[in-house]
């Protein structure tokens, strides 16, 4: 597999507020993630992790720097082009997971494919296997408020993978899960990455971060440390 760069971010800066209340949520953050690579981001609360993910996914404005997704400069895309790129190439898991309350678990997972105009029969096949992978088949017909927090989280992860995504951006995908379910989810994420996705994963759990190829530690809007899983023998 060629290790093409799927995420390239350079010099990202994001400032909130002004005057005395100014918060540098991101300060000159650069990052490159290739196909088949999982990067974990750790750091204290408020260090800028969610802001960084939003910037990588083009969900929030940036004040400086640029993001290229799969070779396309986000800033150069028209609104509908950016929306199509997000729908087709990017999978998101948000910290405050937003399943649609009026749709069942199954319908939520199917949503990105339907929005993309996929034939219903193909949608059904993909969704069924995604539900199985996440052990969610039994609760597929329920609405988000009828399942546990952990099950909602797994549904959000399943939805982020559905279709032919190339990139996964996940903010605390195991936050509401016990350690057994967390491991199930991270194993699945890892296997998708090994099949060629690129992933960026925010987590407070070092056990989860340890599944990544690289761990970046953020503080006050900056990446202050990078720990590679292979760097124990000599690589800088």
């Amino acid at each position: 597999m060629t290790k093409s760069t799927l995420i390239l971010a350079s010099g990202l800066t994001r400032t909130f507020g002004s005057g005395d209340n100014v918060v540098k949520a991101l300060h000159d953050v650069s990052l490159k993630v290739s196909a088949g690579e999982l990067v974990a981001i750790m750091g204290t609360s408020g260090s800028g992790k969610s802001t960084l993910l939003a910037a990588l996914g083009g969900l929030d404005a940036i004040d400086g720097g640029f993001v290229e997704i799969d070779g396309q400069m986000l800033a150069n895309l028209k609104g509908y082009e950016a929306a199509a790129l997000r729908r087709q190439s990017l999978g998101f898991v948000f910290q405050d997971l937003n399943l649609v309350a009026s749709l069942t678990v199954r319908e939520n997972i199917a949503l990105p494919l339907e929005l993309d105009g996929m034939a219903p029969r193909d949608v059904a096949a993909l969704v069924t296997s995604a539900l199985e992978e996440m052990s969610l088949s039994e609760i597929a017909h329920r609405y988000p408020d009828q399942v546990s927090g952990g099950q909602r989280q797994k549904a959000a992860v399943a939805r982020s993978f559905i279709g032919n995504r190339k990139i996964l951006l996940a903010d605390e995908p195991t936050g509401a899960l016990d350690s057994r379910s967390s491991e199930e989810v991270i194993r699945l994420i890892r296997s998708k990455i090994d099949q060629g996705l690129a992933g960026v994963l925010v987590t407070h759990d070092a056990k989860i971060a340890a599944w990544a190829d690289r761990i970046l530690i953020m503080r006050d809007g900056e990446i202050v440390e990078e720990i590679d899983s292979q760097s124990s023998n000599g690589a800088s």
Partner: protein
Amino acid sequence: MSIKNGLLAILSLGDCHGYQLKHELISRTGSVLDVNIGQIYSTLSRLERDGFVRQLPTASSKDGQQLFAITEAGRAEAQAWLLEPMVDERDVRNDLATKLALAVTLPSVDVARIVKTQRARDIQKLQGLTVDKRGVEPQNPAQVAAVLMNDRAIFNLEAELRWLDHIETILGETKARGLDTALDLQAYAAKRGRPTKSNDKKTGESND
């Protein structure tokens, strides 16, 4: 924490006599080390043999107590111990806790750097253990013992990492409030440097 490294770290602050070292070591490590004066002196003589400390002329001490001074080699040894991550899995947390407790009392030691070095080492260790999990089927009975042992090491490391984050925050707050955790050497009168009453013998400590 070995007595050896504790003594060297304290001697790097200044010359001390045996009882003073015992007192400093205990008070700087939250009294978890139960060390007697005999162990202090035997450790000092090993350190002297290895060139890490030297005895000062007895005349240089006011009360006739034997003073010990650290050598350059001893200073380097103490520094190396403080900055190296600990790798002994069996007792790593206790040992690390004691080391950090002592380190925060030493004025010129960069505790944040010690925490950072330990964290990087722990994360790499955790990554290694996690790579070992990838090929393993957790439900496979033939592998269950390996999974258990591996997971225990993983959870221990995770706990240590959370603890490191926690104390890093606490130490950061202490510093932000302008509080200084460093302790100066205390003037400490030797209990038996100049025996006054015979009931001093009841301390139960072994003879030097």
